[in-house]
């Protein structure tokens, strides 16, 4: 058991060290309303190369940590727009926006959750 944990730790640490070189952190604004939107935005932001994505419900800022050799802000924002959420970089298509549940229709609605 102990050896399993040590193995996992060391495996993770070594892979983390290798990947450090081209890691970038960026923040940009993504339109959304609530906690339900949060989950969708973050999931959509996890394109290949993204290490971590966190959307702040209060400030509407999406913070992404990614490998710059594999992806960029534009690619991430396109994936987020495809899920219905517009950002500084990409505006969501009307069709994708309409697919959102009512409470996430950020252009017209605000919601409490």
């Amino acid at each position: 058991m102990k050896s399993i944990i040590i193995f996992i730790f060391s495996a993770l640490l070594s892979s983390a060290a290798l990947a450090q070189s081209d890691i970038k952190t960026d923040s940009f604004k993504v339109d959304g309303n609530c906690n339900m939107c949060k989950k969708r935005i973050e999931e959509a932001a996890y394109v290949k190369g993204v290490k971590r994505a966190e959307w702040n419900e209060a400030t509407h800022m999406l913070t992404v940590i990614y490998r710059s050799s594999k992806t960029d802000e534009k690619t991430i924002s396109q994936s987020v727009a495809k899920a219905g959420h517009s950002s500084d970089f990409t505006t969501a298509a009307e069709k994708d926006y309409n697919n959102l549940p009512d409470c996430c229709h950020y252009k017209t609605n605000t919601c409490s959750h």
Partner: protein
Amino acid sequence: MNKYMLLPATAVLAFVYTSTCAQDSLKNHKLDEVIIRQKQKATTISSISTLKTENIGTRELLKAACCNLSESFETTPSVDIAFTDAVTGYKQIQMLGLAGAYTSITRENIPDTRGLVAITGLTFTPGTWIESMQLSKGTGSVVNGYESVAGQINVEWKKPFDDKQEKLLLNLYQSSQGRTEGNAVYTKKLNSKLSTNLFLHGRSQWLKLDENNDGFLDQPLDKQFIGANRWFWFGPKNWEVQGGVKAVYVNNIGGQWNYEKGTEQIAGNPWGFQLNMQRYEGWAKIGKILPRKATSVGLQLSAVHHQQDAVYGSRNYDALQNSFYANLIYQTYVGNTNHTLKAGASTLIDHYNESFAAQKYARIETVPGVFAEYAYNGKNWNLIGGLRADYHSIFGAFVTPRLHLRYAPFPRTVIRASVGRAQRTANIFAENMGYMASNRAFIIQTTETGKAYGLNPEVAWNMGINLTQKFQLDYRDGSFGVDYYYTHFNNQIVVDVEDPGSVRFYNLSGLSFANSLQGQFDYELLHNLDLRLAYRWYDVRTTYSGELKEKPLVAAHRAFANLAYETRNKWRFDVTVQWVGTKRVPSMWGKNGTTIMPESNSPDFVMLNAQLSKSWKENLELYLGGENLTNYMMHHPVMGAQNPYGKTFDASMTWGPIMGVNVYAGMRWKLR
């Protein structure tokens, strides 16, 4: 109000405060959910509350398509779960190495599964009804009473005023072992102030199964219906009222294959088991937020009527419980809101009327009490100190002090400690119903009459210390926790099964203690792939007739691993592997009843559960799962099965699974 929400203490306070202030609870629940979703973790351990509380969210509950509360702990390392015997099909939980009766189980902070239903009551809350559970070890808050020794499990039902709540939730379940189950939760928001839930549950075990060919059904045939309705009203002037009713009807029939209801229980006829239960509950909470900030007053009321009759071969066990509970809580602050004070008074009335093997036992316990609890929330330090004084109509006055400390030396490191006293009256028959599935003589060793079965109350001190360390590794979150608890019994009702012919109950004379050490590691291995590893060690020993011995049927070692993976298109995979170490099995009768086999150790075993589910558009979810996939079974769970009326018959020494592989499938459908 929001400002207070951010204060460290609030989570704990909310935990108790929920009871009094529904409006407040609404906000707090949302806060909880935010935490869950942010981390996308099924079980979260809060860093901010003074008590270490594992919040078991909906995601965790879905991991095992759990059918009721007792089964929902299959994926929680802190709780052990095992069959009580090889006849009744009931399982009981264990925390810190102590039986489920030592854990206080509350429904939205009102005592729920206690008294006669300490074991069976866990099946009265279907998993589909549950929104979340909060589990904490050690003695809890004095506001909730004096009974909990090992921990608290609070169950929050789905809330009708919650915007996210679907109008109708339907759940169907079918297992390969012949169990069919259906659940419905209907929610109606009549207006912004008034809302209601209707909960329905029906289940049936309709297939006779005897996988080990001993002539006994592995689990009884059963029918179970549960219904509940509750209302919330947010009135003007910060009044909040909620109330509900619940009814439970259970019918079990098992034992030997050819047993039918009413078969006379004499040698030569099939040995039978029957258990019928009817239970009615009503509860209400009335709360008002007062003009002074962070100040409120709340009243909790609850009444229970429970009736059961059981047949275990030639012995009958009939029992009745009527209980009433009232708890008045006033909450305010002293100086500034970092110093919170709660004070109040409670009354608990329990009326028991039991008859076992033609002997009658009746008692009424009336326990009025007062309590006060002070909480301090500093920057790195939190403290909750509570004291209550109660007067027990049979056992007299007693005080219950409790203390909880939290210290966060670094932002991601939390150290907590707790110490407290607990007292409870053991319901020796209901808590040891497993031994009724044997021909052991029930012997109460006492020279006194009156009291509870002529025995004293159980008094224990519990102390614990734990560490939670959160970390981020390669941009993904993880946590590591270790906790150690020690329970010392000043008095315990010893359940002595060291002699194969009897189960004896007596007041503790000598030492009785339980050590529990648990380590848990959680990490998101890959995006949306969560790993949980846990290991726990128990050392539970009691003095049996002058000899300090390991408690029987408790595994000293247990290791646990869970992997949960979720894909973007909503496939979910869950795998849980557990290794359960050996348990001490007391000496038993030899084959013909003339010799006694020496005590032994059960083999260790591995259990594997897995589940696959897929959901579409947040409306429909289908699941397929398997339990005990390694097909590990006890070969002879019923000793002396050929002669159930003879003295060697004993189905109570169950150390492992009674049933083999179980495959199940089901669906959840939500109408929004």
